[in-house]
């Protein structure tokens, strides 16, 4: 087990800088998820930790030792690849033991480790099969098993569930979570799926275009995002963003007018920054934070476009002027397509962002 520290880590491909000075501290035994849209640099960052990509700048330390010039094989890590990367010509057993056999590990110890990995992942029955005779979920288990037999200090997962169907993904997510609890090893997991990030992580690192946007516990990111990008990326369905303008300020609040909702006004308490009168701002409201008319601080009329009733939860895709809103929970129940109704926003359940996307608190 080991802590992982990234200090001002930079990655350039030729003249293109794709990771711009990432600073991340991962504690020993922690499960950290790198999440972000395609091309944000999350896999590149993981591959740099693994030693599969050179580091253009900064330092990567594992267990307190700087690893910049240490070969991938000597970093004490194991990686699970998106495509599983199993050796197609070997049986499951050979796949699991290959690395150990090639390094002259004692036979008895190799057998013990393979047996333990097989038991942990419940793949004992599959040991004599080849990868092409396995289902996607079974292959993923073997890939994780291959990482387990290495007994690494750090596990790296590069979008390991993205090739699986929805049901299997949920199942494997639970298995990976169980595995982390069982092994207690530091795990770094890359995904573009915020649900995976929210369900698995002790802490999430949100990345965008090579920059670390925010690091925090899943619910901290959900409840208190640092900027509009994190607010929009974390949470499903996405947060709604309503165009607004500051019409007045006081010592402790700003009065904003929702420009696309007939001049509806909201008294938004603030404690850190006070935007100028006339400044364009954006009000963020999560789908479940729309309330029945009159229960909040500001009512806006909407027209239901499409209503989705999923049983445990209902969503209404509503038009309110030029903005499309997604509503959830009580505000959306009993609504049908074409309904006109009014919803209410509570000031304390909404977030304010400036025009550039930075949070105004």
């Amino acid at each position, binding site marked *: 087990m080991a802590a992982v520290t990234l200090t001002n880590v930079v990655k350039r491909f030729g003249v293109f800088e794709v990771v711009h000075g990432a600073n991340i501290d991962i504690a020993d035994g922690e499960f950290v998820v790198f999440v972000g849209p395609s091309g944000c640099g999350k896999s590149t960052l993981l591959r740099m930790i693994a030693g*599969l990509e050179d580091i253009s700048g900064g330092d990567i330390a594992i267990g307190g030792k700087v690893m910049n010039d240490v070969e991938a094989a000597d970093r004490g890590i194991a990686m699970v690849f998106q495509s599983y990367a*199993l050796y197609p010509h070997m049986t499951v057993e050979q796949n699991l033991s290959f*690395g150990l056999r*090639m390094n002259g590990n004692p036979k008895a110890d190799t057998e013990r480790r393979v047996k333990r990995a097989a038991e942990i992942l419940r793949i004992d029955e599959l040991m004599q099969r080849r990868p092409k005779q396995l289902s996607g979920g079974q292959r993923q288990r073997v890939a994780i098993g291959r990482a387990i037999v290495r007994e690494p200090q750090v596990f790296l997962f590069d979008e390991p569930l993205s090739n699986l169907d929805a049901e299997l993904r949920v199942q494997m997510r639970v298995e990976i979570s169980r595995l982390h609890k069982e092994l207690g090893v530091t795990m770094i997991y890359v995904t573009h799926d915020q649900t995976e990030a929210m369900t698995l992580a002790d802490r999430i690192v949100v990345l965008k275009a090579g920059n670390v946007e925010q690091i925090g516990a899943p619910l901290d990111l959900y409840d208190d995002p640092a900027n509009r990008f994190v607010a929009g990326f974390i949470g499903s369905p996405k947060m709604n963003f309503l165009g607004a303008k500051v019409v007045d300020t006081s010592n402790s609040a700003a009065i904003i007018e929702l420009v696309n909702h007939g001049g509806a006004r909201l008294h938004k308490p603030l404690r850190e920054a006070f935007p100028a009168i006339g400044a364009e701002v954006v009000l963020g409201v999560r789908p479940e934070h729309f309330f029945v008319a009159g229960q909040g601080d500001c009512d806006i009329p909407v027209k239901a476009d499409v209503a989705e009733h999923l049983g445990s939860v209902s969503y209404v895709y509503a038009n309110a002027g030029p903005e499309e809103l997604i509503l959830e929970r009580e505000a959306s129940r009993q609504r049908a397509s074409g309904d006109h109704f009014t919803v209410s926003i509570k000031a304390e359940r909404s977030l304010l962002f400036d025009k550039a996307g930075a949070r105004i608190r």
Partner: protein
Amino acid sequence: MRTQNATAYRFLTPYLLIFAVFWIWPIISSFLISFQATRTVPWRFAPAFNWGRLIGDPAFYNALKNTLLILVIQVPVMIALAIVMAVLLNSPLLKARGLYRFAFFAPVVVGEVAYSAVFRLMFSLDFGIINKLLNSVGIPKIDWFSNVTPAMALIMIAVTWRWAGYNAIIILAGLQSIPEDVYEAATLDRVSKVKQFFHITLPLLKPVIVFCAVLSIIGTMQLFTEPFLITERGGPGGGTETLGLLLYRQGFRSLNFGYASAVAYTMAGLAIAITLVQLWLMREPK
């Protein structure tokens, strides 16, 4: 569906007719001819005439021995060389890869007569560059065309030069189809590059190598150009005569079509038999 099939067959008819007349009929006809004595007029049906002669003909055994010798030595050497070339061509460290790929493939597109003439010049006893190079490192001149062993070696060198690059390009395609992350996984498993080659690359290349080997076996069984043009019709004294050359000599020099047909069927039968054995040996474990 039936109308569609009929239309398709109408479009295919011109080709099928040509195929039937120039491929299918000669195959059937030569099989029938192999059972006829063709040096009498008119030809007469004599089933044991050609096949019986084949079994006791020293010239046939000489050609068979030469062909199999080339097959056993040249094909493995060429395939091994092709694998090495393919690995080099696939290396990210190699500059001007496109140029090397072209250079390795170029021998296949060079005219057979031109390349044979150049080989004859290069290996000439007194004026050839090969003997001069050998001399310069203290090795005495070799008479490549007058002694059987050097002549056979020359044939093997020429065939290897001509086809190794071609096979390397096919193997290169196989190499490029091996996913990079398999090697990355092996690297993280602390497996050295050499061990990766023997335990990952070679096993995963097996289907491509089998394909190249089968093509090479078929090609070698039909070997004709090099012994005909470079060592002058299988010389010295039939020392490099192959089955292909024997067939030509019997069919088109002696006009003994019956015997030439029997030789042709023997060549095809051997090629199929060796290929089947090869495929069986290299089969995927269940």
